[in-house]
């Protein structure tokens, strides 16, 4: 027995030793956590540690729309234009750009100081090569969007002219978002498929503020400042993108100085963190409303009266308060009301349970023995952003006026299969980006558009979408979009419920982080950030 005890005791000692070592080295960690850390001894830049949820798929930003690489991509690579924290288009490689009067050509004037991380200059040839490759390769995520580009003309080293076969004012915004980073022709144009290129698999070469340095699978990616960045060297010395899959762990890491910026603050931790002086919280709002979508091909909801009744059962204020502590603003417009294109006059009907029941009675529905006017409806959603709770609150109100409403919660991929591929649902609830340009409305509304999962079709809406896309006068565009929204709130193919907003948490000693730079720098760009 004593022998066993001795073994056990020695193991406990070993464990304590490990903890003991930790308190020794622990002090250095905490200094590092105070942010300037080791960096202050060299260039005064310091290292910022940023969160990612998972590993990047690869290092080429134009093949897939990969959220886990997007943050790194926006600091390694440049686009022609980029989006700021308010989703406005601002210059990136292109200092300026203009459409011809007929909207059929789009000219970009590139910054002449831009160079690749290997020292080669960035030229209009790179632009031509990148976007023509994307257009010609169906496996690139932006390929279909570039079908309107006939040819890209290299007017001179720093001027690229896009000749279009159809006027589209939203092209600039499209080129500021996913899958549109300019790639170095001298690296990529070697006969290989982009996915096989060494720059994609092991060592990306971009023209952005930070250079790729190191990648440790499952752990982190390390970027070093690019002193030759064409808009000035970044103030930070290094960016470390650390893979932390769990939000709660990220919050603990942030308060313990092991992380400087986290993607998403869980609603239940906002209060605790706002009391912490070392943590800064900012609301990040995106035009990605949560919306209830009806399958118009399903006879249960093809009757407008049923959709109207459901629309009047939605208590947006209550949903925002209960599900998100009021962080996410309610949305009554068919397009996010923060946008210039939003129609805030013609809106969805407000909560009115009595009127909702009256609509059903007027339409000739009668109560059955169980007290239901309509039976067999269900909301299909996936477990993210509080969607199931939103669905529950809507269903409870529907049930109270005699609409039988079930809820089905699936895992995301299963949901996607049912909704987007099989169209096997009655009502579905989802969020989703509807920017950067209001032209994105066409994805939801145009007859047979691929994200038009409700199967909505209205010839006037299709006509207005075409007119608005080709129109260069923003006031006239706005009128077209307003009319579209007016039709949408009457026809009700989908109903917006609330905007998307989360608290972004970061270290309080960090300044000029991406969200501080509306109109000045990109919404995930760390060029200007510095530690106090």
């Amino acid at each position, binding site marked *: 027995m004593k022998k066993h005890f001795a073994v056990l005791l020695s193991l406990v000692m070993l464990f304590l030793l490990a903890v003991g070592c930790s308190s020794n080295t622990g002090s*250095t960690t905490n200094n590092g956590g105070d942010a300037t850390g080791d960096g202050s001894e060299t260039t005064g830049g310091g290292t910022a540690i940023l969160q990612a949820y998972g590993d990047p798929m690869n290092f080429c930003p134009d093949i897939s729309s990969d959220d886990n690489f997007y943050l790194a991509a926006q600091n390694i690579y440049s686009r022609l234009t980029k989006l700021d924290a308010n989703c406005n288009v601002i210059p990136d490689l292109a200092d300026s750009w203009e459409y011809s009067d007929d909207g059929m050509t789009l000219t970009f004037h590139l910054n002449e100081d831009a160079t690749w991380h290997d020292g080669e200059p960035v030229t209009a040839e790179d632009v031509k090569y990148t976007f023509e490759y994307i257009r010609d390769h169906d496996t690139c995520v932006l390929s279909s969007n570039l079908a309107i580009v006939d040819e890209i003309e290299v007017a001179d080293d720093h001027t690229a002219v896009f000749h279009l076969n159809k006027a589209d004012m939203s092209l600039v915004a499209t080129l500021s978002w996913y899958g549109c980073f300019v790639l170095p022709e001298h690296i990529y144009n070697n006969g290989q498929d982009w*996915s096989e290129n060494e720059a994609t698999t092991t060592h990306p070469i971009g023209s952005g503020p930070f250079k790729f340095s190191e990648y440790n699978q499952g752990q982190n990616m390390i970027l070093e400042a690019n002193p030759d960045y064409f808009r000035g060297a970044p103030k930070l010395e290094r960016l470390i993108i650390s893979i932390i899959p769990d939000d*709660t762990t990220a919050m603990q890491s942030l308060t313990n100085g092991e992380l400087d910026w986290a993607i998403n603050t869980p609603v239940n931790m906002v209060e605790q963190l706002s009391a912490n002086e070392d943590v800064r919280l900012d609301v990040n709002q995106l035009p990605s409303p949560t919306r209830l979508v009806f399958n118009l091909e399903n006879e249960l909801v093809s009757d407008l009266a049923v959709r109207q009744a459901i629309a009047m059962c939605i208590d947006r204020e209550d949903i925002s308060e209960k599900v998100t502590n009021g962080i996410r603003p309610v949305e009554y417009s068919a397009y996010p009301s923060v946008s210039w294109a939003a129609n805030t006059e013609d809106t969805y009907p407000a909560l009115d349970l009595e009127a909702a029941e009256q609509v059903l009675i007027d339409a000739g529905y009668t109560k059955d023995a169980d007290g239901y006017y309509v039976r067999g409806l269900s909301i299909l959603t996936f477990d993210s952003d509080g969607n199931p709770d939103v669905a529950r609150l809507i269903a409870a109100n529907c049930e109270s006026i005699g609409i039988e409403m079930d809820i089905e919660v699936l895992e995301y991929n299963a949901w996607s299969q049912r909704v987007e591929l099989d169209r096997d649902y009655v009502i579905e609830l989802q969020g989703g980006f509807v920017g950067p340009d209001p032209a994105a409305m066409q994805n939801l509304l145009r007859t047979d558009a691929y994200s038009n999962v409700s199967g909505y079709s209205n010839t006037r809406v299709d006509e207005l979408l075409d007119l608005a896309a080709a129109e260069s006068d923003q006031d006239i565009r706005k009128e077209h979009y307003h009319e579209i929204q007016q039709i949408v709130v009457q026809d009700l193919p989908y109903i917006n419920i609330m905007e998307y907003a989360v608290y972004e948490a970061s270290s309080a000693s960090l300044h000029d982080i991406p969200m501080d730079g509306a109109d000045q720098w990109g919404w995930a760009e760390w060029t200007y950030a510095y530690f106090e």
Partner: protein
Amino acid sequence: MTKYVIRRIFSGLLTALIVFTLNFIIIKAAPGDPIKTLMGKDTNDPVLRAALEEKWGLNEPEYVQYFNYLTNALRGDLGTSIIYNQSVASMIGSRWGPTVLLGLVAAILALLIGTFLGIFAAQHEGGIMDGLFSMVSYALDAMPPFWLGLMLMIVFASRLGWLPTNGMTDVRAGYTGFAYVLDVARHMVLPCLTLTLVSIPGYFRIAKSSVLQVSNEDFITTLRATGMSERKIFDKYIFRNAILPTITLFGITMAFLITGITLIEIVFSWPGMGRLTMTAINQRDYPALMGIYLVVAICVSVVMIIVDIVYALFDPRIRYD
């Protein structure tokens, strides 16, 4: 004995093949596919989908896809991940180390501590310590590992500041050499402690009950009647018989180690196999999943064969069967 070993190896191979096949059927039956992840949440472009399906051979009939996986696997090629476009073998290669390190240390600690406490409790059955240990054991058994991990993190990392919160190394410091080893050890304490605590009850219960069971056997009573000392009876007869079920449990734990500690890996951002598997499931990365499960199936088979052989050595009744 040789015949017994050969028979076990053969059934091990058969198990791996069946697992491989079942796994293919199950993941193909799951709704959704890896193309959705490649395309991103904000697009649903049918041209893009068709192009990607063709690129990854997902437009082929299912049986063709199955035989492709199988022939590749038989040649030792685990294939290429659809999501990450890199060889599944290299992905597993960079992830198995951290998991085995964490899982093995925790399993050995849990085995030693749990068994020791179980034996102690059995020898003092009905005493205060027995009651206390049993109570703690039930409490630990009832705790979800991720919750326990989070609580330990809040206490030891956030409140006391003794230990790091996430990851395997201090990325800001970037230690090398011996300092690196110490750094990893420090980062390992909390996940390892969590895993050890939740694994102790299993060993505790099995050790306690089998010691009690063996103690009540007739031959022990006979030995007592001969006047042999309790110490000698325990060391020579009770312990050796009672330890057999523990060996089995340890074998099973080892086998499931590769994917069984996922939640702890997620809570502590530990870069192991569990997270790799979980991500592959969420993204429907078929080749990665087929590869991971094949490796797991082989590991389970090998460990089970070893356990059976060890068992047969300890207990002759088994090999004479």
